[in-house]
């Protein structure tokens, strides 16, 4: 009985615990002539959440491409925010899934490249074409190759402020850190939230890191240096932002329920007039402005506290599309990506979403809306989006987690910086290719 019990136990425990952990591998992409037979591509994407209208644009673009290439069918699958990375990781482990995959910029596109899950788009798209894709060379380049093709630009991240709420309490929209904290004191005393945010799902922590933290660094190389260990996340240029974040908590800047609301839920507090400011996704900014009325809103970067070159500036990143290593038709996938950057598609993107396509051939001068025009112009000279230059695990394990605790008031800024440094030190041991990859990326 004892032996049977143990055997049964092994079987039952296996049934409980087995997940689809399979080894990864790469399938060499083959370059071939454009096929004339039936071709089916699958595209997993995300973005409707931050660029409403993207779904319609994608349907339009696929339809137009079908007219050009009747033998090509493209099926799209919209992913959730929390599911985007895990779903692709599972697909990559199985070497089965989409031909075209959506990635956030920087590390989110680099890592799948390093892991052999995607083919470099520069193997299929000419360099002179890629040169037009905004942020391709700053975020997606690695050892002379470009991993993914930027799709649309994400000004990261604009603060939208309601002039009407501030003026109601005798205040003006704060543009400096000290003015912000003063506004927080005044408004919180009146029961009004100065900044609306939701950090339950963690993502907002990464936004805040990039918006506040970028004000003290001199370039994205500083951040990579801290990842590699030649600088530390406890050094003032990397740690000061945690102290600033703690100040916002101490001055009651945020809605009290920030830890029990998700990122996009909290933004509604601003729309309803319960909060004076909030942070919104760049592509979605014009929609938020339209909800309240352009005359009542100021679109601005995070109030300035630092003296670095990016203080008082927006960050810039592009959301991108990559071609998977297992795709049977990488050249068709690449052709579709180039098609999506043709003038008609760029204009249609703007028409459908109101946001900026990641292509310098898009005519900003033709944009009539002053809010959009100002945003697009600012983003062309934007700073690096820091979150995209640290390992994704450091983001979730240190930035997300510590931001939640600092905003709850259970961890100080100094403790958060120390924790971030210790998580990074540990990551250098657990991710045995991290140093090699980041060193190569830094070059």
């Amino acid at each position: 009985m004892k032996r049977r019990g143990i055997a049964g136990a092994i079987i039952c425990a296996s049934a409980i615990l087995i997940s689809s952990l399979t080894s990864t591998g790469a399938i060499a992409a083959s370059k071939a002539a454009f096929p004339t037979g039936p071709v089916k591509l699958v595209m997993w994407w995300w973005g409707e959440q931050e660029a409403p209208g993207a779904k319609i644009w994608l349907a339009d673009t696929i339809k137009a491409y079908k007219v050009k290439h009747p033998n090509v069918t493209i099926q799209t699958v919209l992913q959730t925010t929390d599911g985007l990375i895990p779903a692709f990781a599972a697909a990559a482990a199985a070497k089965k899934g989409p031909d075209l995959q959506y990635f956030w910029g920087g590390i989110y596109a680099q890592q799948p490249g390093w892991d052999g899950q995607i083919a470099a788009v520069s193997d299929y798209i000419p360099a002179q074409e890629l040169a037009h894709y905004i942020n391709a060379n700053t975020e997606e380049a690695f050892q002379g190759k470009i991993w993914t093709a930027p799709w649309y630009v994400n000004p990261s991240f604009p603060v939208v402020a309601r002039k009407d709420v501030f003026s109601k309490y005798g205040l003006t929209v704060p543009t400096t850190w000290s003015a912000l904290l003063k506004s927080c004191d005044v408004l919180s005393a009146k029961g009004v939230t100065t900044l609306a945010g939701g950090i339950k799902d963690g993502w907002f922590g990464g936004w805040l890191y990039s918006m506040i933290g970028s004000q003290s660094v001199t370039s994205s190389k500083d951040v990579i240096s801290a990842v590699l260990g030649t600088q530390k996340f406890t050094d003032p240029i990397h740690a000061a932002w945690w102290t600033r974040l703690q100040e916002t908590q101490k001055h009651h800047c945020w809605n009290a329920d920030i830890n029990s609301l998700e990122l996009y839920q909290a933004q509604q507090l601003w729309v309803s007039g319960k909060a004076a400011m909030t942070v919104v996704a760049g592509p979605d900014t014009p929609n938020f402005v339209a909800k309240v009325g352009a005359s009542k809103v100021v679109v601005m970067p995070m109030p300035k506290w630092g003296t670095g070159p990016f203080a008082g500036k927006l960050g810039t990143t592009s959301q991108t599309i990559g071609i998977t290593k297992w795709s049977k038709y990488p050249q068709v996938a690449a052709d579709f990506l180039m098609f999506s950057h043709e003038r008609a598609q760029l204009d249609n993107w703007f028409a459908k979403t109101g946001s900026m396509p990641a292509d310098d051939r898009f005519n900003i001068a033709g944009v009539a809306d002053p809010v959009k025009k100002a945003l697009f112009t600012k983003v062309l000279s934007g700073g690096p989006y820091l979150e995209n230059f640290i390992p994704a695990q450091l983001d979730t394990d240190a930035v997300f987690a510590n931001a939640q605790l600092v905003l709850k008031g259970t961890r100080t800024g100094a403790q958060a910086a120390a924790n971030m440094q210790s998580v990074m030190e540990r990551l250098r041991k657990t991710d045995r290719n991290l140093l090699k990859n980041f060193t190569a990326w830094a070059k």
Partner: protein
Amino acid sequence: MTSAATTAYLASVPDSSGAARGRRRDFGPWPWILPAGIGILFIFGYSVVDLLQQSFKYRGDWVGFDNFQLVVTDPLFQTAIFHNALLLFTVPILVALALLFAILLFETRRGMRFYRSAVFLPYLLPIPVVGVVFGQLLQLNGALNAGLKSLGLQSFALDWLGDPNQALVTMSAIIIWKEVGFGTILILARLISLPTELLEAAQIDGAGFFKKHLKITIPQLRSVILFYAINEAIVMVSWVFNYVYVMTNGQGGPGNATMVSELYIYRSAFQNQAPELAAAAAVLLLISTLFFIVGFFKVQSRAQSGIFDE
């Protein structure tokens, strides 16, 4: 015993001389178990072997116990295991509540079917639904706190899932709410099947409610209570992923306040692209779960008069 019966009995007694062994083979239950056993071995056995292999490798290269060392020394994994251990404390609460509800239902004359359904209903609800509903309900400005405030109980209106000091306790309470129905029905089923003579005799002798159940009912429910306790211990060690994932958006937050070993494995495998660390953590979890499952089989084998044999 008749002569024919005696002959049959003698034929069934093993031949101690061994002469009969070559003539007649008794394979016991194995021919019946074999088809299913092969299927299970093929599906899960292969995966376990693959998992074990992965746990000793890094990108295909043999690394010995390196992955295990990295996992065991990871503060996040230690936190996750600690939280699983804390969740084990809910097991006695679950057992006590299930027992109490079962006895109350047993004693209820009117509306037993309704109450029974009401207690069992949460167990039937899908965990993601429960997670989403409680996630909304327990927001700082959610319905529960609004209700408490309207009753003048502001001091009880906590940030149930947003406060790192509160989140795991809240999570435990939700798991208890969901899981207690299973135990109640299990214990009640056994309770109904018990012979009533002893209880009636005790009542005639003047035993009160507590004495009757403490001295007569509970001792007879020992096997089913043990089964339920072990089952719930397995749940707390390796089946709470859904609750945590849905209620914290896969973060195990706030901070790492609700991080559990399954979420650690999931994040290692699918977010952090470290399948070998996930495999090592899964093997460790497999071993700890085995501990409970072996216990479960022991209880099952000893339950001669328990629910399994009736």
